[in-house]
């Protein structure tokens, strides 16, 4: 396959989840900041809630790696 498309696919695999994660974190961040103002004991929940959507981009990163590796890229 054309190298450009492979690289584009890998970039897309990271970029789309990254945008989704950013959007999710912005919503969660504002909600949790408001909650913590009233209940500071929610700090643990805040950490978890902020970190949970990042799984998407991590998995996207792994998929991108798999795409690049199959095309003979890094590793």
């Amino acid at each position, binding site marked *: 396959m054309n190298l450009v498309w492979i690289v584009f696919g890998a970039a897309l695999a990271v970029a789309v989840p990254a945008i989704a994660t950013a959007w999710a974190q912005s919503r969660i961040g504002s909600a949790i900041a408001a909650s913590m103002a009233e209940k500071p004991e929610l700090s643990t929940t805040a*950490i978890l809630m902020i970190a949970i959507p990042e799984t998407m981009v991590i998995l996207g990163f792994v998929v991108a790696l798999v795409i690049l590796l199959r095309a003979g890229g890094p590793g």
Partner: protein
Amino acid sequence: MAKIRVMGPRDRLPEVLDVIQDAGVLHLAAPAADSAVTSVVPADRENRERRNIRRLLDDVEWDLGHLGPGPGGHAVVPETAAAEPVEWARTAARLRRRLERMDAQLAHLDEERSLILKYRSFFDAFRSLLEAEPRWPHTTAYHVLLRSGDQDALPRLRQALGHVLDGAFEMYDRPLESGETAVLVIVPADHAANLERLFAESRVEEIPVPAAYGGGTLANAIPEMLARLKLIPRERDALGREREGLARAHRAELERARAWLNDRRAHLDALALSGVTSHAFVIEGWLPADGRAAFEKRIHTACGREVVVSEESREEWTSEDAPVVLSNPRLFRPFEAVLRLMPLPKYGTLDPTPFVAVFFPAFFGLMVGDVGYGLILGLLALLVRTRTRPGTLLRSVAEIAGACALFAVIAGVLFGELFGDLGSRWLGLKPVLFRREEAILPFLILAISLGAVHILLGLILGVVSSRAHPRQALGRGLSAAMLIGVIVALLAVLEVLPRGLLTPTVIGLLVAFPLLILAEGITAPIELLSALGNILSYARVMALGVASVMLAVVANQMVGAMGSVAVGVTFALLFHLVNFAIALFSPTIHALRLHYVEFFGKFYSAGGVRYAPFGRWVAGAGRRAA
């Protein structure tokens, strides 16, 4: 934990409570409902005392808070021999009134100072005009400040003035250092009312000359204001000295009062948790099983054999009632702070602190993986440790950071990294395992393998913690076995393991599948899949690790890329600093998440009640266990 019952003659209840409070090990619980034993109903006198204590404590805490920090920080307050609540109440109330007056004086001085500064900047801007103000016949001058950031305010004001006053005005404006704009408007005296109405409607901030400085014109008032400005710091200092004097005179007494009042309040609370019959009292509570003999000895020594201490058998109480205290070896104890962010585990379930103590720094180390960053973090941890008191959260954080730093250095040696590739370029540092920036796939395999180990460990701990519920334990055991089966099958497909293993493993999985549904219900396959997803989630260790080393390498490349070496080195240092800051924050959050979500989700049962023994109060630590 051991559940203890203390019994004795009813009239000796207050004395026995005092001894128990001194011992500081018994977590009190209300006696079980029994027809013969009733709760102590507080008398009117005790209710009144409780109200007085609450009011007095409020005054004392307020006074101590407003006297500023003491010389020794949170020193242990010596116990009082004799209580003088009436005298304390008088002192605290008098002191509070005095401190409130001083606070009001300070606030007034600050307000006055900022007002004078505002006038001074205004006067400086229009000095020549304002000095001529007394000589203007039949005119009134208005001083206005326009806030910074509103570019259109000035033209709008000029337009509005033109409209209202029909051109009969003079307006001058000067930008001030604060970003505000000073505006001087001079209008004929008979137009003044129109202008004042305009200011009020458009909410323009006008600053009239205060009567306190002679009134009249600003030029007349300014010399008085400037003289006053010189006096304000002296008055502030005098108030500060007075506060210090009050602190010297009363702090020790107030701290003693606070300790006594807190103790007395706890005593009254304990009284309400005691049970009585017509002739006897019963106190029930929990203490660590190994402290039982010492507690009994203490009670007998102080109260004699008339007071009986007995232990309830294990059959008489349930795990849900027992309080929880985490007890770990010294090496693991700082990591209890990680668990403090979560609800406590239930009594009788597993305390995961030792596992956190191993895996948390290991994951952190793999993500940071740099000798240089590790050493800097180690130094910072050492610095914080030397400046904090034992038992505080900050001390625990410093010790956790120390362990993380050690693992970061070890990982740095394994990956051959010292400030990125600087170690290999300058010192010829060779990796023991592999270079993270080159060997991404091996690093990914390492991260996911660690994840598999961590999740399997979680499932095994789940089996152990649910041993009292065989069906649940069987389900978790089957999940663990099937997870191993899926991993073996995948490795066999990829020919990492012999391909011959594939068929027996798949058969095993097919046999285990219905058993898993029988044991855990229809949601079991979903949980198994989520466990596989959890393992993949450990890829973040690799992702953050690679990002960290790449940023460090980019930082090093800046030295040669900026033309000037000095500029390059500055940028490289700044970039390393940013990378180090990220390396402190991001790996911590992700290592925490891997524990809270992926690992604890497999076995952790939250919902324990914290062990809070009835003891003497100590400053900075709440209640003290002896």
